[in-house]
């Protein structure tokens, strides 16, 4: 099956300024969302207690709240999880950091179960998650550090394999993708926990994969097709890799949707983050990474390896043209 019999000729770079402007606008909106609306942090980062239980039959949330109230937890957030016999109970971290309250908060999960057991006997425990405020803080810090080093590592690699202007382009695209994805998560208030962060990081790696495939082609064409202007070469390269991008995105999206639909709640936010990321990356690898690289005035000489330079210079002296 062949969708295109020849390489498409779309002048992507013609709209690069419009696209860049639009991206900046959307990014600002996303940042506004992240700051204004905030992220729905899970207990990994916020700390607190989460208890999931299954009742043998449908249960009224009011009953659960009632028994928790009696047990001394009037602030507990109670909601259905999936269906009406599966209940999720959340408690915010307890104030105070001294030893006594630390021990007390660790026992909450036990006490919550006791409070529920008192009401009805056949409550089945699905999971308990308790993250102390200190651990939550550390996990958040580690998350920020992980994001930073992922950017740094990818930036250094691209600079090493290509050139700093390309590196700048990739970083711009990565930043764009991260902001848009996290902004979207903020918009739909999807829970943001460690697994979501893993999704965002994996998405960044994947998004850059896109950029690199295009850059690789740009490099090859810049060296191979000496006569053409840089802008044409970038357009050509994007067009040449376009079909591959579409197919790869398609297969990746297929498996991600499988995770989204079949994988259950524990990988829900992960698959959402990645699906959004992959969609955004398709756009950013074309317009942001290439667009920024063009903006930085990429030249053919930037990419010709130094040893080739000396060779070329040597031949120039002899009056030969490479």
């Amino acid at each position, binding site marked *: *099956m*062949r969708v295109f019999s020849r390489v498409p000729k779309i002048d992507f770079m013609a709209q690069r300024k419009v696209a860049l402007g639009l991206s900046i606008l959307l990014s600002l909106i996303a940042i506004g969302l992240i700051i204004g609306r905030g992220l729905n942090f899970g207990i990994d980062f916020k700390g607190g207690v989460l208890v999931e239980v299954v009742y043998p039959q449908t249960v009224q949330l009011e009953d659960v709240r009632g028994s928790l109230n009696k047990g001394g937890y009037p602030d507990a957030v109670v909601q259905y999880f999936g269906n009406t016999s599966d209940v999720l109970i959340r408690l915010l971290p307890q104030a105070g950091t001294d*030893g006594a309250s*630390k*021990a007390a908060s*660790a*026992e909450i*999960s036990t006490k919550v*179960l006791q409070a529920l057991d008192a009401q009805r006997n056949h409550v*089945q*425990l*699905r*999971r*308990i*998650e*308790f*993250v*102390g405020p*200190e*651990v939550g803080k550390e*996990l958040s810090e*580690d998350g920020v*550090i*992980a994001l930073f*080093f992922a950017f740094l*590592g*990818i930036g250094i*690699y691209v600079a090493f*394999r290509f050139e700093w202007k390309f590196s700048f382009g990739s970083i711009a695209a990565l930043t764009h993708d991260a902001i848009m994805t996290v902004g979207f998560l903020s918009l739909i208030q999807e829970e943001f926990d*460690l*697994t979501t*962060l*893993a999704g965002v*990081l*994996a998405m960044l*790696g*994947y998004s850059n*994969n896109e950029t*690199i*495939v295009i850059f*690789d082609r740009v490099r090859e064409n810049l060296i191979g097709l000496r006569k053409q202007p840089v802008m044409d070469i970038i357009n050509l390269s994007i067009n*040449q890799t376009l*079909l*591959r991008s579409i*197919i*790869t995105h*398609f*297969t*990746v999206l*297929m*498996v*991600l949707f*499988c*995770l989204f639909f*079949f*994988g*259950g709640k*524990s*990988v829900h936010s992960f698959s959402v983050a*990645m699906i959004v990321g992959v969609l955004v990356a398709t756009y950013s690898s074309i317009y942001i990474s290439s667009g920024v690289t063009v903006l930085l005035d990429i030249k053919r000489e930037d990419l010709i390896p130094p040893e080739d330079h000396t060779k070329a210079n040597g031949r120039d002296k002899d009056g030969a043209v490479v």
Partner: protein
Amino acid sequence: MHQYPLWKTVTLIVATLLGALYALPNVYRESPAVQIATLSGDALPADFGDEVAKALAADQLSDESSRAEKNQWVVRFASTETQLKAVDSLKQALGPTYVVALNLASNTPAWLEAIGAKPMPLGLDLRGGVHLLLEVDIDDARKAAVQRYLSDLPTFLRKQDIRYTARRAQGDTVVLEFADADKLEKARAAISKEYKELTVTVPAGSTPTLQARMSDEEAKRIVDYAVQQNLITLRNRVNRLGVTEPVVQRQGADRILLQLPGVQDPTRAKVILSSTATLEYRAVDETIGAAESAAQTGLIPPDDDLFYTREGHRPYLLKKDVIVSGPQLVDAAPTVDQQSGTPAVSVTLDSTGASKMFDFTRQNVGKPMAVLYKETVYDTNHNAQGDEIRERRDINDIINVANIREPFGKRFQTTGLGQKEAHDLSELLKSGALAAPIAIVEERTVGPSLGADNIRRGTEAAIAGFCLVVVFMAVYYTVFGLFADIALLLNVIILVAVLSVFQATLTMPGIAGMVLTLGMAVDANVLINERIREELRLGLSPHAAMNAGYERAFLTIADSNVTTFIAAFVLFLLGQGSVKGFAVTLMIGLATSIFTATVGTRTIAHYVFKGRKLKDLPV
């Protein structure tokens, strides 16, 4: 025609065979089982199988198999329900000298196990269990140390006949005041000589003052000791919990990670982990034959208590008066006796304990003294109605009896021990001493039903993803799509094999990583196939187009995967628990997919099209 390198073919065949072999154990389902070992770690008695069979027969429980494996007895059952019932009846029938634990016993055939092939261990989120992160209160350990010096130093000075006028603790520092500079100087010299772990300074000021502060190494040693002590205690208790493959390890400076797979009742686990143990040094009643007759008749002299030794179960009558108890024990470590060169345990007491010990030993040289280990444990059993009943049980074991050679106080040695005995005794002493308090700072408990759900969902997502990708590739790229599909299957097999060989724990995010790998792995083939199509359009002959396609796409494939690898590596370094599992799966998946997508499909394509005259390529 282009000569295809033989090594690539050989590598591919070897990788396929090894991959299939080492991935194979994951196909065999694990059986719910009960695993039995002796508490002491000794070998099981010869007729143990009959004993187990009798206990099971009494409750009309039928097993699938029952046999000794390594040092343990493993009984497999058809269902989890029978397994749970069997645990209770075996616990009751065998008594507290055996550890009876729930387990998932592998059904991997012996010949596979012989070559080291094992299935991937399942993470807690898949098999259910309790994950606890505990933090040792090191501030408390430090404060306790400062308090100890606050009472030890004045006692020491009094003995040296150096008088001080005031003492107080100031944060990490013990401050002593003196009437004149002469006494201060004497005290400084004496303390520096005796307490090498303290840094002694004399601040300028009107009153002659001395500040003694723990050196950094000493402070670090105290923290290490507090953590180690808790580690040992926790390990002992976890062993008693009856958990197979528990993880008890130090994490960072002051934390302990505890993973208890299969534990379904976190409350019970927490009760057992927080139980307390203590020690008592007591005098031994030396009346000849009294202990034996007390053990037989049950008549115990009014001043004595009857206890048994942990090893060998020998009776001893101990005096009711306690000389020194656990909280007064500061340190215990295995060492080598300077005089005899044999293994020994060196014990350090605090000043109160030291003076009591000195008074006692001075009057009792040549007489025996015993160490009694006391602990309260909670056992959970089920009664006839199937309700849980929690039973309290006191453990009182004599762990050592030794003769007093000479009077001693603060530091002394217990000699006459073997290497292992010295090690065991020091650990028991440590776990009986007052440990720094620990707090749970993170808990993740997954019930078994959620674990089973996660496995089912993960498998469904993986199979659905795999099928969709396979169908799509075959439809879109026809024959070359099929090559990619074979490579994808090979990729899954090799990935599972590598993860199994490394014994990487499979978690839910790990499964997500595998599914993601499936989607991304074909990217390499898409790159290659698109490139081949392009070269064909440029007018290259089919064989040349194929070669050019593979060659030119390879660098792009490598480059583009490196960045995903970088992101995964960062996640591996900074992530914790299940997220690490995702990172590991993704990294290994990237590596194996590059191999199968390039070398794999190239080799297949080579042999399929070898020697054929082609007009076009089915791509």
